[in-house]
């Protein structure tokens, strides 16, 4: 039997209550759990992509002879080969690679902003948030160009059985392949783009707060960290979207 003093005190282990067992504030935990659930949203969409793709025939001929047809799922390099200012030049995946680099770069600047927040260095937080907003906006601009090009189509378009040609893609027809390819492209990259846009809006909000010294007065820059978690998540999702749409 223990003495009465030990019977008087509650246990104080990590999970014994009265503390933060995961060493994270409630706000950060909420962000983590939101991201977990958002991962399932994207997971579902990417599974839809995978299943839709597998219910269509792949292109089996030589890549050099590839033509757009609703009969088979297109080869991504043949679809995404344009670059602004290089009309008619075949630059497979060059532009999307650039976009991806910009987005990954924005993650780097975000990390630097969070790190500056830990040091309570207001000027550095401002500087790196600014860069992150800039890169995020450039990514959105690139996506707008990518969409515009995808919608306008190529000079040749697709030759239909009845001799007519269709150019570009929208939600009901698609010069690059089966209509579903365009549907999924617009839906999934659009859904991701909406996330990036929300992220940029959040970044602008915390940027204004930082400039006004809100976090400095509060004594910590946790809000920057929370938005940072979201921003890295959106980048990570892009890596998967990129892999699904452009690489495989």
């Amino acid at each position, binding site marked *: *039997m*223990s003495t*009465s003093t*030990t*019977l*008087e005190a*509650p*246990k*104080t*282990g990590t*999970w*014994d*209550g*009265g*503390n*933060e*067992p*995961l060493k*994270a*504030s*409630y*706000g950060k*935990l*909420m962000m983590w*759990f*939101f991201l*977990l*659930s*958002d991962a*399932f*949203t994207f*997971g*579902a*969409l990417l599974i*839809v992509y995978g*299943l*839709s793709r597998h*219910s*269509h025939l792949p292109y089996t001929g030589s890549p050099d002879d590839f033509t757009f047809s*609703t009969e088979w799922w297109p080869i991504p390099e043949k679809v995404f080969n344009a670059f602004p200012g290089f009309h008619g030049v075949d630059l497979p995946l060059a532009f999307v690679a650039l976009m991806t680099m910009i987005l990954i770069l924005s993650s780097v600047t975000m990390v630097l902003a969070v790190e500056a927040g830990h040091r309570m260095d207001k000027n550095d937080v401002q500087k790196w948030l600014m860069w992150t907003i800039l890169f995020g906006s450039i990514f959105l601009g690139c996506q707008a160009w990518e969409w515009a090009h995808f919608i306008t189509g190529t000079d040749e378009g697709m030759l239909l059985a009845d001799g007519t040609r269709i150019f570009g893609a929208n*939600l*009901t027809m698609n010069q690059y392949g*089966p*209509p*579903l390819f365009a*549907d*999924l492209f617009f*839906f999934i990259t659009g*859904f991701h783009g909406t996330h990036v846009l929300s992220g940029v809006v959040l970044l602008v909000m915390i940027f204004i707060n930082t400039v006004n010294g809100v976090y400095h007065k*509060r004594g910590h820059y*946790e809000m920057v960290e929370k938005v940072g978690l979201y921003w890295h998540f959106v980048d990570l999702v892009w890596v998967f979207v990129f892999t699904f749409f452009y690489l495989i």
Partner: protein
Amino acid sequence: MSSTDISINKDVHHAHEEHDHHHDQNFFEKYIFSQDHKVIAKQFLFGGIFWGFVGGFLSVIFRLQLGWPEATFAFLEPIFGGWIVNGKLDPEFYLALVTMHGTIMVFFVLTAGLSGTFSNFLIPLQIGARDMASGFMNMLSFWIFFLASIIMFWSLFLSTGPAGGGWTVYPPLSALPQAISGSGMGMTMWLVSMALFIVSQLLGGVNYITTVINLRTKGMSMTKLPLTIWAFFLTAILGLLSFPVLFSAALLLIFDRSFGTSFYLSDIYIAGEALANTGGSAILFQHLFWFLGHPEVYIVILPTFGIVSEVIATNSRKPIFGYRAMIGSMLGISLLSFVVWAHHMFVTGMNPFLGSVFMFLTLIIAVPSAVKVFNWLATLWRGNIRFTAAMMFAIAFVSLFISGGLTGIILGNSALDIQLHDTYFVIAHFHLVMGAAAFFGMFCGIYHWFPKMFGRMMDEKLGFVHFWLTFLSAYLVFMPMHYIGIAGFPRRYYSWTGFDAFNTFTDLNSFISIAAILGFTAQLIFLFNFIYSIFKGRRATANPWHSNTLEWTTPVNPGHGNWPGEIPTVYRWPYDYSKPGAPEDYIPQNVPFSQTQSSNLPYERDLE
């Protein structure tokens, strides 16, 4: 503000709470846009009860059609207007009725009404927290639910009717507005409402999870949590992981309906005309839907597992049997609930081998479910049982869960499902195991925690009348359905009198309908008791059931912040009932072992 709180709320949140204490809240802040978890819980409860009556009323109307297929219902014309044609229910109206009954009951009553009420109310009170982690998001969760409710309720009054494609809204029926009138505007509003509903659930869910992880009071380890909290915690995790998938599915369906995409549509002729949509798959929607849909049935039933465990232990005056086994079985059920969804799709033409995998996983759920049932029975066994109204509902819950669960083992077989799929056998199974049982769990919770919610007691005698009528009608409605279901009687049919095979069931169908009307009427007793007791009920004491959990250490009417002084510290698990050597037959969780020397067991602290 007490000192215990400071370590928890380092944030703005703390400053905000302090602020709340200083100025008087006006009516809107206190009752309408309240951030107090107890008020939000009551808002969800009132919402749930309202929807429960709407959903129940709809079922009575379609039971009239099923029970008396030849009769005319001209007396309904003043209520339903154009939906009654020559005294007969319009067939498309019938489809809308069953669709909305399902939607309302599953989502608006047994998800929002049940989790929304009890998770909100009990999590902070039972873990010893001043409020939810984020009161603002909690408030937002209710008001988004409210918005979803308004849209869904509004759709009931559209001239083309609410959604009519079944609560599972399978495309292509739900995707093509020209298919039935229930796939028109009503379906659009269904989808918008459900999208908002999901947002509300996620806001609530992250709050519940975070609160349980971060805001437990000193000493409240995970293995000293009341089983209710474990149940709400796991329910929130299930919702958090499964609702987003329905969200994706619903967004894709919205695009198919409104923007001409073909995610779920392919090779469709409608009214002799070929649609342009190619390449999509309707089965894909079913996979996405049931990836939510199956965890959803556990989202409905898990909170009641917790509520019933708590009420049975308290009213048997015995520790819950197998506390850790209860937690383990809930964890097992939660895990399995994500890998069994395709058992809803055995007859969609899926690979029989895949079917057998899903059958195997499905049948495994019987194991943790049986563990729970045996534990409840063992808790009751030789207990010092007090038959309160809440206890009656808890015991009946176990009964309904057994009766409904046994048929689940039958339905889980992919071969038997070929005969039983989409028959009244399925209806009987899930209404007993997750419909009636969850309702009984909800009633159990309302009767049990009513004193803490409103500071008054509900009338026990009316509670018993309500219980017996509800219990009898539940079995009288659903038991005969097994019988007609085995005979192949299909669900969702407006008229069955044209089939010779089913004409012999006319009397049985009338019988079911009479029992259903009885059951619905009995709920009016509950409604009266509920409203009357809020204003005129007998005043409650602080701990009327002599229960151990922390919510009963608060004042009779806990204010904002729950405990006037410091938050109590927890020393023991919540089930020290009838402990040998103790003067009373209960020892609340906040009583230190130093005060209970006469009942302490050797190595008490090592056994925890």
